Each structure stands twice: as structure tokens, then as C-alpha cells.
């Protein structure tokens, strides 16, 4: 696989993600601001995929040999952040659901005579 093939795959991925975001925006699943934020992120992604050489000064600064390595490091950092955020949010949601379910359950109790 040469660099052009990889670039095509990355572009296809960005277009797919952009389309998915567009559908969610149309269905009002995400706000205008959030939609614009993600579109901006994917435009940056597309730009870097087409012109990877613009990262070379940064690579030299960080002693990283390939753009791909930088991409991997960045990806892991972002994924770790998202995982922790999601984990906290899910935990909080679980606690809220548990409290709500318990409230309903305790309320339902009728004392028989």
C-alpha cells in the first residue's frame, strides 16, 4: 500500500464521518455548534491526510520519524481521553438511573393491614 492509497482511505473515512455527522445534524441529534466543531476537526484531518509534509517541523521537534507514528500517538491520546470521559458519564448515568428506579420502587410499597 503506497501513500496515495492510504490517503484515499483516509479521505473516504473523513467523507463517511462527515456524512454521518450531517445526518445526525439533520435529525437534530447534535447542535449546530457541535456539528461545526466536528466538521472542522475532519477538515483538519483531511488537510493533514492530503499534505502530511506540513507536520515535518513538528516531527523533528518531537524526534518522531514518521507522520504515521505521530498519528498513532495522537489517536491513542484522543481515544484515552474519550474513553475516560465516556466512562465517567456512563457511571453518572448509571447512578442516576439506579436512584430513579429505587425511588419508584420505594414509592410503590403499600403496607398491608
Amino acid at each position, binding site marked *: 500500500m503506497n501513500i496515495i492509497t492510504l490517503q484515499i482511505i483516509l479521505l473516504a473515512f473523513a467523507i463517511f464521518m462527515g456524512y454521518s455527522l450531517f445526518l445526525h445534524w439533520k435529525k437534530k441529534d447534535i447542535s449546530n455548534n457541535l456539528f461545526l466543531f466536528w466538521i472542522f476537526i475532519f477538515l483538519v484531518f483531511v488537510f493533514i491526510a492530503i499534505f502530511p509534509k506540513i507536520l515535518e517541523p513538528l516531527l523533528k521537534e518531537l524526534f518522531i520519524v514518521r507522520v504515521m507514528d505521530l498519528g498513532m500517538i495522537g489517536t491513542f491520546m484522543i481515544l484515552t481521553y474519550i474513553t475516560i470521559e465516556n466512562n465517567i458519564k456512563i457511571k453518572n448515568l448509571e447512578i442516576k438511573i439506579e436512584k430513579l*428506579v429505587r425511588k419508584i420502587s420505594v414509592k410503590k410499597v403499600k403496607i398491608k393491614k
Partner: protein
Amino acid sequence: MKIFIIVPVYNEEKRAVETVNKILKTDKNLNVIVIDDGSIDNSLTILKNNFRNNSRVIISSHVINLGKGAAMKTGFKIAWKLGGEALIFVDADGQHNPKYLPRFIEELQKYPIVFGYRELNKNAPWIRRNGNKFAGWLIGVLFNVKRKDLLCGFLGFRKEVYKKIKWESCRYGIETEMATKVGRNKIPFSEVKIDTIYIDKYKGVTIFDALKILFKIPFWYFNK
């Protein structure tokens, strides 16, 4: 002392009624709180039909399944609401023989918390026996608490200790979490020997639950 017996139920349409009846027979002063934890079988309907006119049985339910730990917490909330001073948890599947309830009640007069323990002999599945032993040893070392059977869910406590042992585990792991809090807060406890009954191979704590509990131990250790 007003004591409630809490029976968390999840998909136990065949055994729950029998378990509750056995509990009622052990002592005429005992009241039972049954918490159906969002069963997808007919447990709730069957329980309601059987105990509709029985004033000693209170039935409530979760609209969705939350897990045993959550059902136990709901049970205790209801017990306190009804003026309970102590409670004992009994599994609905028949693993816990209610004939030991008088012993638990006796011990609860002397100790704020009472755990059941099973003799982990060769009748118990190998993985459960050794997993339990290992977890017991690990909790003992980390939290300075010696328990004969860490995973036994037949236990009871008095109202005043709840704040110290308040658990966060919704699913399995509640017994282990409770043991860590007992150790950390140096709460005196007693242990009552009970029968070793394994009803269903595929119910109860699985190897995956055990691994999840294992991963939670560092969290409990550092979460002071």
C-alpha cells in the same frame, strides 16, 4: 429489634415462593421484603399472587434490572422506611437455608454485622472454591479482615453500621466490597456456618464477575 428479611429476586419463578414460605415458617415475627429486580420471567406475578393477602410479605420491584447489589439497597431503604432496625439478606434461589435465620438473629444481638460462611469443601466447584480462597486471602492482606467465605451473600447487619458499609456495587461484588469496608472501619463481626448448596451452575458469580471484582479491589483500596 425489628428485623426484616430481604430477598432480592431475579428470574426465580420456580424457587422464590418456596424460599419466602420457608423464611416465614422459621419465625412468626419475621417480615419479608421481596425485591424483584426487573425479572423477565413471571417471578413478580407469581410472588404477588401468592402473597397478596399476607401482611408479613412486602413486594416491590425495579422497573429494569439493576443487579443484586442495587436490589439489596432498595430492600434496605424500604426496611428503614418501615422502621426496621436490622436486616438479613437471603438469596431467592434456595442457596441459603432459612433454618439458620434464628442463629443470625441471635448473633445480630451481639454484633453489628453477621456473615454466613460455607465450608468450601470438595462439593464446591474447583474454580469457585479456589477463587474464593484467593480473594479471601487478598482482601485479608489488603484490608486486614479475615473472612471464611468472602462471597457468601447470606448476611445481616444492624441499621447503625450502614453508613460505614454503604456499598456502591450494583451487581455481584457487593459482598467483597462490604468485607473491605468492614476491615477498613474495624467493625466487629460474627460468622455463622451455613449449608453449601449449589443450585445452578450458570447462575451466581461467574468467572467474568470474579474478574470484575478483582479489578475493583485496587479502586476500593485507594478510595478511602
